[in-house]
């Protein structure tokens, strides 16, 4: 197992090759989305010849201090540093693992009871999310747990529940979300139910379980999974997935401080590939609130985590199809003018029903994208609620673009993970319906 993990650690190099492949999908030029509200990056002229969005160049990322400080929903935990309109707050360029590390440092420094633990966290973690924390805060607060699946994963969760039951802050790491299943019993039967079953007398609100999730290009069956859907039935838990460094820090701090146990799933391909200017002071972002990233009026495209960037690329392909897809059969001219609304769900449980419904009632069409398999996935739950609440407003059936109901076969990944072409096709089919 350890060998596999070491192998997967090299995933940080994957992002680059994945990006190359993503670019290879089409050599064409994407430009602004037709009719969408300009975001920061869109204000900059595209490079000569244009570019297709990728994670590194995504317009969803906030790469200047000004736009970072304007991230919607930021709640500052500290006083402004100056009287200037933006409070004089500083930002620093961080990728997602650095933002996670930053959040953990703030959690440890602002809460004496907080501890961080899991497999290999003491030396900095296989994804570097805990670099230097053990040196800074001591071995009693940042420590390794023994490395066997049953003992560590279930044990990590159980141990964390014990700490949290005593009112302390327990931030546990499960090295890959693929290995969260031994802890399923502790998370679903214990953590989720302790407040309820004790009549509110005990709770484990101080527990946060962080775990890297989603595909990485070469993770195969056990370094690629998106298990968020399995927790949908575990009322009492919260499940959160960030898309970027700013989001990771704000949502992680909110999760750590939320009065409920939270499973915080970090899309591992974004650890290095997503880079933003991240506010360095203490702030949170709200849980159970989706965020509209691109406003549109014709179709709602809903997802979370890594696929947001694939959706961005698909939107670009829709408005400006590459030469190979310019035939009317592929992307009809009408569809190219469609205004697509892109939504980041951010919290999977409890999800922001009102926000999603408001959007679909406006656009009349919904495409849901997730990496996990379709059957029993989060998309099924959302689609059911949408058809119940938007029945008269829907102009087309809700479409789900998901992983297939197979394990994630190593050499098949490009055909397993919903890619830009599949999302593009789903949007076209939904618009044409």
């Amino acid at each position, binding site marked *: 197992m350890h060998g596999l993990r070491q192998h997967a650690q090299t995933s940080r190099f994957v992002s680059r090759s994945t990006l190359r492949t993503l670019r290879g999908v089409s050599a064409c030029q994407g430009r602004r989305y037709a009719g969408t509200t300009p975001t920061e990056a869109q204000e900059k002229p595209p490079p000569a010849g244009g570019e297709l969005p990728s994670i590194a160049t995504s317009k969803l990322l906030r790469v200047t201090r000004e736009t970072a400080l304007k991230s919607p929903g930021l709640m500052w935990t500290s006083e402004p540093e100056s009287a200037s309109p933006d409070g004089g707050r500083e930002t620093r360029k961080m990728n997602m693992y650095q933002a996670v590390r930053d959040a953990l440092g703030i959690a440890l420094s602002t809460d004496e009871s907080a501890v961080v633990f899991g497999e290999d966290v003491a030396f900095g973690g296989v994804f570097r999310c805990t670099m230097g924390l053990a040196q800074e805060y001591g071995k009693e607060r940042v420590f390794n*747990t023994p490395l066997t699946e*049953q003992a560590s994963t279930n044990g990590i969760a*159980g*141990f964390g529940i014990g*700490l949290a039951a005593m009112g*302390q802050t327990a931030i546990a790491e499960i090295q890959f979300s693929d290995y969260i299943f*031994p802890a399923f019993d502790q998370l679903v039967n214990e953590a989720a139910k302790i*407040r309820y079953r*004790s009549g509110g*007398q005990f709770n484990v609100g101080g527990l946060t379980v962080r775990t890297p999730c989603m595909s990485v290009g070469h993770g195969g069956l056990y370094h690629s999974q998106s298990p968020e859907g399995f927790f949908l039935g575990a009322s009492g838990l919260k499940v959160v997935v960030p898309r970027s460094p700013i989001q990771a820090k704000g949502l992680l701090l909110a999760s750590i401080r939320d009065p409920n146990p939270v499973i915080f799933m970090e899309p591992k391909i974004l650890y290095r590939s997503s880079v933003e200017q991240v506010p360095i002071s203490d702030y949170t972002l709200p849980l159970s609130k989706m965020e509209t990233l691109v406003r549109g009026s014709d179709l709602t495209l809903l997802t979370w985590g890594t696929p947001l960037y694939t959706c961005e690329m698909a939107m670009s392909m829709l408005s400006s199809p590459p030469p190979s897809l310019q035939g009317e059969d592929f992307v009809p001219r009408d569809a190219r003018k469609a205004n697509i609304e892109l939504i980041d769900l951010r919290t999977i449980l409890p999800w922001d029903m009102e926000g999603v419904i408001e959007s679909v009632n406006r656009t009349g069409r919904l495409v849901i994208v997730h990496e996990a398999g379709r059957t029993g996935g989060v998309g099924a739950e959302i689609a059911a609620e949408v058809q119940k609440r938007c029945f008269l407003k829907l102009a087309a059936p809700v479409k789900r673009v998901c992983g297939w109901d197979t394990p994630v076969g190593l050499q098949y990944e490009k055909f397993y993970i919903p890619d830009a072409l599949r999302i593009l096709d789903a949007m076209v089919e939904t618009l044409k319906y």
Partner: protein
Amino acid sequence: MPNSASPVTTELHFFDAVSDKVIPAYRVLDGNGQIGEAFARKIYEKMSLLPALDNVLYNVQRQGKISFYMTTHGEEAAVIGSAAGLDDTDEVMGQYREMGVLLWRGFSLNAIMGQCLGNEEDSGTKGRQMPVHFGSPAHHFHTISSPLATQIPQAAGVGYALKRDPARRGKNCTMVYFGEGAASEGDFHAGMLLASVLGSPTVFFCRNNGFAISTPAAEQYAGDGIASRGPGYGVKTVRVDGNDALAVLAAVREARRYAIAESKPVLIEATTYRVGHHSTSDDSFAYRPRSEVENWKKTDNPLWRMRRFLEGRGWWDEAAEQEMKDRYKNEVLAAFRRGETLKRHPLGELFTDVYGGEMPWHLKEQRDELSALLKKYSNVWEPWKKELAKFQGNGKEML
């Protein structure tokens, strides 16, 4: 020798924990216990309160007045002896057969009845859990849950939290109870490993009563019980005669002293015998002869042994026994009859405490959905009408 302090030998020999060395069981109650009269009497009286409660609650379950029950018959010494060895503020995480710890700490008979009946006085679970799933922060007794052994790694975490709490460091430990069957769960491995490696002041207390429902211990493990596993985890270990309240008391006292002083775990295996059925849903004579049980009750009865100890010192006699039995019978019956008349928590509590903070939209909606159904049907649909009358306010707050 890397990773081991073993001496070197040229002889090939496979160590067999069973035949090479069986861990002896510690026993005191053959006459030499050093203990004061009042404390000894308290131990015996609390031990005797268990069967007094068990008899009534077992029978009312048989009459359908409560849905489920589990007795402690045969394990009175293990449970009360261990509770007596703890400080009342030590954190306790139980399996389900440890009601005696709460009795030792002064949990009231009304509270016992409240939980078993699920009435409005059941502050431990608000009527949400099955009977015998007690809990009380005031008594430092974490709420019991049905999944076996989950409390074991949690206890390692609770111990670690105590070590990190400036107010309780060096003063308290965690005590976690489990049966020998639960020790087969992966969680036992996780809890022992985490507590020993991370340095958690936790006392692991195994009630080895010979049976996990119908499975005899011989089908549970092939080694020397549970105690032989402790040294493998680097955990100080002792086996005690679990029918000897004073041996259990002494072992727990020393274990907690060591756990707190060294911030390390201790494993205690108390050997005993489950005299009662596993639960009210079990008929144990389907897998063991009635005569075997009767023999155990006669030859190695923890209550008789403690009583003989008291009588040998002139601290107890037949009159005291009769007085206690009558008193308990009256008190227990009175508490049950009182609890039986009380209503349940309000029906709306079905939906609360799932989350801390604001109730999420899906729960609000579902509460409203039930509310609408109640408005529509509760006056005409007998099964609901009858059931609503059992709740405080007859479910009015939902209508």
